[in-house]
């Protein structure tokens, strides 16, 4: 039971990253590699603030807000210097590696013995002291609910709709008077903000921040998103923004359960990235293979 709840909590915390990547990858149609750098940036700033005695919740908020600047940089590289999306993100990601080491002063920063939002929460509600795994679960689910509701409302506003339209048909959005460059930058900043928030949460939950904590995480986020999408197809859900957001979170939880199972079956932890990449490739490719087969049948 304990293990199940902690797996769930892991999924919830990592789903914040999945939501961030969902915004660029699915809504904006922009393969944004900034996410990996943003995750570590959020973690670094958050760890720095906590070790300097700032309140953990406040640290989390500040680090997320500052991380949105990473999205701004990628956005400017793409819209002003006309560099391709994937390359803009990679450039920001590479630059962030050095910046993160500058921020922490070294390659990693331990939060050992410091207060985190998790320990604060346990102290505030003494019942949780006996069941510490519950605090991560409660915090994870609260944050996910807040994010899903806020994003769902945001993407129904005039600006939110314009961002979705920019990802769907940029030419049309410009013909309808939309400043598509600005819309891209806003979406990239929100995405980075969420990745930074995820970084801060992960750092606090694992008790340290590391400059390499972002490496390979984009594959985890993508895996979560495509697992979530296969839920949507399976349950024949309408492709609404709300169900897509919920499914991204469910996908993230599901990914953690799968990882837990394969590790228990004795998979070498260092093979996890290969496994994740494999699963993501299969799930991304399956719908396309189906389409090709159907087209051949109809031809």
């Amino acid at each position, binding site marked *: 039971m304990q293990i199940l709840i902690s797996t769930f909590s892991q999924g919830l915390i990592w789903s914040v990253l999945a939501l961030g990547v969902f915004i660029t990858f699915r809504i904006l149609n922009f393969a944004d590699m900034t996410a990996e750098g943003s995750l570590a940036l959020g973690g670094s700033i958050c760890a720095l603030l906590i070790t300097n005695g700032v309140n953990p919740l406040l640290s989390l908020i500040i680090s997320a807000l500052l991380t949105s600047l990473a999205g701004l940089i990628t956005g400017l590289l793409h819209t002003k210097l006309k560099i391709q999306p994937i390359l803009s993100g990679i450039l920001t990601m590479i630059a962030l590696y050095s910046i993160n080491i500058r921020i922490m002063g070294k390659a990693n920063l331990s939060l050992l013995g410091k207060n985190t939002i998790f320990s604060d929460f346990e102290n505030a509600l003494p019942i949780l002291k006996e069941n510490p795994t519950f605090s991560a679960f409660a915090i994870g689910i609260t944050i996910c609910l807040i994010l899903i509701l806020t994003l769902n409302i945001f993407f129904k506003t*005039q600006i939110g709709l314009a961002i*979705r339209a920019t990802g769907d048909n940029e030419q049309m959005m410009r013909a309808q008077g939309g400043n598509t460059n600005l819309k891209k930058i806003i979406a990239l900043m929100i995405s980075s903000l969420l990745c930074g928030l995820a970084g801060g949460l992960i750092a606090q939950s694992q008790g340290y921040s590391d400059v390499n904590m972002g490496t390979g995480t984009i594959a985890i986020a993508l895996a979560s998103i495509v697992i979530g999408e296969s839920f949507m197809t399976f349950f024949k859900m309408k492709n609404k923004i709300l169900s897509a957001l919920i499914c991204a979170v469910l996908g993230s939880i599901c990914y953690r359960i799968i990882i837990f199972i394969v590790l228990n079956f004795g998979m070498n932890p260092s093979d996890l990235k290969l496994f994740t990449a494999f699963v993501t490739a299969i799930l991304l490719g399956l719908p396309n293979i189906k389409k090709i087969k159907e087209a051949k049948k109809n031809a």
Partner: protein
Amino acid sequence: MLKLQNISKKFASNSADEKIIFENLNLNIKKGEFVIIVGGNGAGKSTLMNLISGSILPDSGKVFIDEKDVTNLPEHKRAKFIGRVFQDPLKGSCPNLTVEENLSLAMLRNKKRTLHFGINKGDRENLKHELEKLNLGLENRLDAKMGTLSGGQRQAITLLMATLVKPKILLLDEHTAALDPKSSEKVLNLTQKIISDNSITTLMITHNLNHATKLGNRLIVLESGKIKHDVSEEGKRLLLKNIFRN
């Protein structure tokens, strides 16, 4: 209303493939005119539209809309005055958004987008009413994904989107060419109705002789970037007969 002054435009300039599209082109279009533009491939018809809409900028010369110099205004800012329908029915709308969401985007063409909800109840009724006017039975499909509609339906909605906020100029770039004859006829009749109901200044490119004859009160024939003929309604029929006979 619309004035092009000494417009020059080259593609691939200073290279071996340099292609001069326009050289000192002048064009004046008065309010309420419905101009049909014909001409062979490469005559510069689409480039003309792109220069007006701002999706490409001229090398030299000026573009005026309502006496206002818009030469350096980017496309999305010019969109305030300009409604546009492309040849490809897929280009004018967002396939993954609903009919209602697409139309609501178009309602804000000349306004600043804010954090207010994109669609409210009043808008919904309004949009339903507008869709009824199309007479395609689309008024009950506000929640349908745009991508699930047929090309003709999508083009009709794109036309509605281009005119929902009344534009000063409507640009139609062979907007019925990719449709089957029946849908093409439907969309064309709608075009005529919307333009005459709202008396919108319009430029329409077409390859279809029937459409060129049937519609418009001015005809311009472009040939390698030059205006070869420019006639009003009376001269149109005669000219068309001559051009298309050869």
